């Protein structure tokens, strides 16, 4: 399938013309014309596919023949994959990687204590009229009190108050969560009559964002580092298997095997290692999930919340398996390519 084959073929034809009459008819068929060119190409394509299939199977059989050693290799790969994957899942579960984070960026407009419901409605209208306001939500003094009580658990103390000390407030979701834009919107809203104060819940949004960015980067860095680890594990294993099949490689190179041909079984071995490691990693993640589920659930319950550990969904699993397979393949490629140059037929 290699383009470089073409000039060689012509050479082959030249060599072959020396054949005497004893040559079988098949060999003598003229090899010119578009049609024979096409059949030759398609037959070579078939041969190529055939070799891929047979090497995929052959390397799988070799893998199964030594289950313990190969399982250990895959386990090493799995462990390298589990760490970054688990971190990623944790971040995901904390919604730190979620786009919904932006929803939590709000401004709270506190009205004057004296403002009544009619005034509040008018102000809300005015707020809504602002270009950069996406939506608003009015929180009456009673609602505010109820939330406050719930948040603090100070029912008794607050129940003792004669008057509700809380003003009516309006929660504003801005169009843009850009800090400067929000600050500007706050200034505009503060100027409206009947508005006492505008609070921008910017600081914690920013903090959360930075945290998310930090987590993302740590996960990616760990992923890259452990991905490199997978490359090394596979590379080393393949290096040993190239070494143990050195004689075979020398022989096939003596009789005209291309590098691609020699490389192929090892690439498939690498891909199998990667895939096996990926599957084991999924198992480990599942086991970890199972192991932690109970304490996490009781912990969440003690806070009156319901929270379940995140599971890797179909997309996530597919990504993990593809990554591990590609890493295995790549590790094998690096190892074989590096090694083949040192193998010369005797």
């Amino acid at each position, binding site marked *: 399938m*290699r383009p*470089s*084959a073409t*000039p*060689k*073929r012509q*050479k*082959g034809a*030249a*060599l*072959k013309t*020396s*054949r*005497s*009459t*004893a*040559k079988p008819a098949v*060999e003598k068929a003229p090899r010119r014309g578009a049609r024979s060119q096409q059949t030759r190409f398609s*037959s*070579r394509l*078939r*041969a*190529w596919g*055939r*070799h891929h299939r047979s090497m995929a199977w052959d390397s799988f059989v070799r893998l199964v023949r030594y289950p313990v050693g190969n399982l250990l290799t895959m386990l090493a790969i799995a462990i390298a994959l589990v760490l970054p994957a688990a971190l990623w899942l944790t971040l995901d579960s904390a919604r730190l990687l979620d786009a919904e984070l932006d929803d939590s960026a709000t401004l709270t407009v506190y009205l004057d204590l004296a403002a009544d419901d009619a005034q509040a409605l008018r102000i809300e209208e005015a707020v809504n009229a602002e270009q950069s306001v996406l939506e608003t939500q009015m929180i009456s003094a009673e609602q505010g009190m109820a939330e406050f009580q719930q948040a603090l658990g100070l029912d008794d103390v607050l129940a003792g108050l004669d008057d509700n000390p809380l003003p009516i407030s309006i929660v504003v979701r801005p169009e843009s969560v850009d800090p400067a834009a929000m600050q500007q919107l706050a200034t505009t809203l503060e100027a409206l009559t009947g508005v006492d104060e505008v609070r921008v819940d910017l600081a914690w949004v920013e903090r959360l964002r930075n945290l998310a960015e930090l987590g993302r980067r740590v996960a990616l860095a760990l992923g890259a580092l452990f991905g490199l680890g997978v490359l090394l594990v596979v590379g080393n294993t393949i290096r040993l298997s190239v070494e143990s099949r050195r*004689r*075979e490689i*020398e*022989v*096939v*190179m*003596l*009789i*005209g*095997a*291309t*590098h691609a*041909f020699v490389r192929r079984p090892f690439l498939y071995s690498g891909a199998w290692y990667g895939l096996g490691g990926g599957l084991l990693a999924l198992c480990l993640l599942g086991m970890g999930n199972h192991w932690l589920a109970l304490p996490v659930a009781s912990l969440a319950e003690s806070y009156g919340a319901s929270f379940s550990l995140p599971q890797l969904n179909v997309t996530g699993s597919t990504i993990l398996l593809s990554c591990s397979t590609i890493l295995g393949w790549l590790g094998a490629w690096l190892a074989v390519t590096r090694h083949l140059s040192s193998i*010369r*037929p*005797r």
Partner: protein
Amino acid sequence: MIAFEHVGKRYGGRFEALAHLNFRVARGEMVFLTGHSGAGKSSLLRLIMRLEKPSRGRVVVAGHDIAQLHASQVPFYRRQIGVVFQDHQLLFDRSIFHNVSLPLEIQGVEPREAARRVRAALDKVGLLHREKALPIELSGGEQQRVGIARAVVNKPALLLADEPTGNLDPQLSADIMALFEDFNRIGTTVMIASHDLALIARLRHRILRLSDGRLVADEGAV
């Protein structure tokens, strides 16, 4: 078919394995290459197989200066040459059948066609009944015949052999040589390196004699 033009080969700058080699081998010829051990027979064959490049001069095979071949073309060049090694170079974890079919597998020959050709080659060397055996179960002479079957299975125009009768008794050696003559009779160019002078003298083919890397005699040339 083969032309050596002022070929010299040095190893490590000092040691001169071959020097001033000039000769031609015509298509369909059968040639013996002889000389004491270390005379350069193997080096010469390695040059033709393009396992090495000459330090000087040109090695031309079938009209092509093979030193000019790009590394990626070399495998395709080697497929045109059948080689029989003194130590057989068989794969011991595969059956005789699979050993012989290896060149066809490398060339991507369709399995049914390959099986047909493998059996034809094994039949030719008289080992068709052992196709399922492993090389280790065979005698030295039989292993050598498997090596020959593998060398001829893709019908090369050029057949090289390096001491093919090295470890065999006279009767087996004569049988092996007779096999080579059969292939030569159907038009294959054959070049055999051997120091079994008594045997090759009986066979009445051209003999190239090497001594210390030089061609000292070219006997029986046509």
